[in-house]
């Protein structure tokens, strides 16, 4: 990993007496792709706006390339944002939109033209310079918004759910494109999404946010296989959260065994069976009332609702996590 370029230190922020950020610490390396993942209202957009300077934190520091920029105006920061609704200027054509940042900085006209052309080529929309934003499709607007931001060669690019408004197929395609673009430009990306697949596909590291707290920051592997808290386990891996002997365990549904192996020691009643997306999902109720889901590929399973079967899991698949619902202090 490269050298550190952006640091957030103990960022706190409240709106109307509600604390939306409860001390966020984050460090991003040069050229890194970091995703802030969380449900709506978890504070991820506010974090992004604080980095951009569109919001001031109540306390804490934002440090870019070793300089404290916490109080800097947004226009002085070497950071650009791709907004959720694209925010393309409706009264300017595509070329003027893309060249806006350079024009503000009084870059010579010929150079602006050259760079705009280059930026449009980068997002594969060379022919669209003369179009107006309302003549573009959602995916095209998205690319123009990205071109408009990266043309300024920011140190850090902030992306606020940039693919949220696109349909699934286009989203998959844009994920790959964005990743390619990020590699090509070598710019640090701070990317926001509520889609864990997107986060896992694209990121070098994922920061899972929940109620204004950064629950875990780690590689997709770490977040998926070694969740630190029950929330992360549930949100990223859709894991079963089980309370046993005073411990909280996260076990993903594909790791629940019911094949008669020696680990299968628990009695479980089949509550419900469903088949979706090539996966059979079985909902069990344990003797102590806790529910858990097992999943299998295929439908070759002849157990029926109401039956009692023995289930269990390998010790390595049960990850000890901090329970968000129980223990606020341990975090």
């Amino acid at each position, binding site marked *: 990993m490269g050298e550190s370029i952006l640091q957030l230190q103990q960022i706190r922020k409240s709106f109307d007496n509600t604390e939306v950020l409860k001390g966020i610490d984050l460090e991003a390396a040069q050229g890194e792709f970091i995703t802030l993942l969380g449900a709506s209202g978890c504070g991820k957009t506010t974090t992004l706006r604080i980095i*951009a*300077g*569109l919001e001031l934190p109540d306390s804490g520091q934002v440090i870019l390339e070793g300089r404290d920029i916490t109080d800097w*105006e*947004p*226009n002085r920061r070497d*950071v*650009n*944002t791709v*907004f959720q*609704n694209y*925010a*393309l*200027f*409706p*009264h300017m054509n595509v070329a003027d939109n893309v060249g*806006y*940042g350079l024009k*503000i*900085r009084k870059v010579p006209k010929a150079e602006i033209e050259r760079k705009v052309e280059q930026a449009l080529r980068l997002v594969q929309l060379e022919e669209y310079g003369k179009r107006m934003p309302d003549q573009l499709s959602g995916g095209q607007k998205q690319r123009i918004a990205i071109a*408009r*931001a990266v043309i*300024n060669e920011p140190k850090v690019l902030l992306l606020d759910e940039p693919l949220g408004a696109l349909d699934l197929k286009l989203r998959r395609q844009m994920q790959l494109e964005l990743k390619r673009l990020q590699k090509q430009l070598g710019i640090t990306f701070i990317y926001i999404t509520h889609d864990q697949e997107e986060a896992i596909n694209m990121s070098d590291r994922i920061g899972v946010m929940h109620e204004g707290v950064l629950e875990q920051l780690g590689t997709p592997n770490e977040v998926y296989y070694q969740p630190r808290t029950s929330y992360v386990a549930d949100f990223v891996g859709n894991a079963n959260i089980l309370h046993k002997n005073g411990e909280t365990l996260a076990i993903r549904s594909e790791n629940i065994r019911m094949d008669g192996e020696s680990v299968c020691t628990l009695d479980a009643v089949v509550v419900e069976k469903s088949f979706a997306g090539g996966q059979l999902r079985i909902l069990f109720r344990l003797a102590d009332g806790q529910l858990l889901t097992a999943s299998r590929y295929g439908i070759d399973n002849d157990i029926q609702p109401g039956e009692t079967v023995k289930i269990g899991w390998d010790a390595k698949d049960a990850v000890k996590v901090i329970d968000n619902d129980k223990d606020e202090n341990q975090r």
Partner: protein
Amino acid sequence: MTKTKTKGNSRRRSGNIGLLIPMYVFTILFVALPILYLFLLSFLQRAQVWGVDFTFTLDNYKRILEPLYLDTFWQSLKLAFTATFFVALIGYPYGYFMARMSAVWKRRMLLLIMIPFWTSALIRLYGWIIVFRSNGVLDKILMGLHLTDQPLKLLYTYPAVVVGMVYSLLPFMILAVYSSAEKLDMSLVEASRDLGASSWTAFWTVSFRLTLPGLLSGVVLSFIPSMGLFFIADILGGNKIVLVGSVIQEQITKGRNQPFAAALSAVLMVLTSVMIRLYRKITGTSQLEGML
């Protein structure tokens, strides 16, 4: 499901056309026909004693070209420009910032604009006489603060008329700008700041540019009436400031020359139509902001 929905829609649409008929009848009866009558009248002659002589003539229009009347048009235009300028200067910031306020403050600011409408415009103008007259409210305040040592004698002067005009026309500008600024997407301003614009540059390149249709529509909505608001000039300007509106009114009441009044009105109407054309060309829209 979809089918019944479409059906319901089309039925409602045909119902709409039926509902539009009264509007067309109203428009033809009370707008189109009177205008046609006005234009016809402007080509006729004044009868000796009373009424109109049905002989075609262009004399009414020739008479407008006389220096006296041309000057009246020029004075009216000048006053309308001056008034509109100050209306824009005060109304734009008011409307713009009102749109940025919280819902509660928006209602309060709107109320401030609406309250004057509850009283007759004429009565409110007489209020200005109390303010402007010699040793009136304004003089007392200025002399009390020792800013002036004698009455300014503002009543029946050009500035008094401008103030009266600005006062009467301000709501139109404010509402026009407000309705345009209300629609302004603040994320565009943020994007502009994010891309390196100072707050001032962001305002000029984004906010102002996108609320320009509101401002221009406010200009049209103030300029057009200000050409015809003769009673303001009469009340606050005495007989010193003569506007086209006053001439028209005089030609009908005192001069009993309806055809000439019609010709003056026709010219005024053409002038204002040109203004609206210009507005449409500049903004590329056909609708006036703030007009429902």
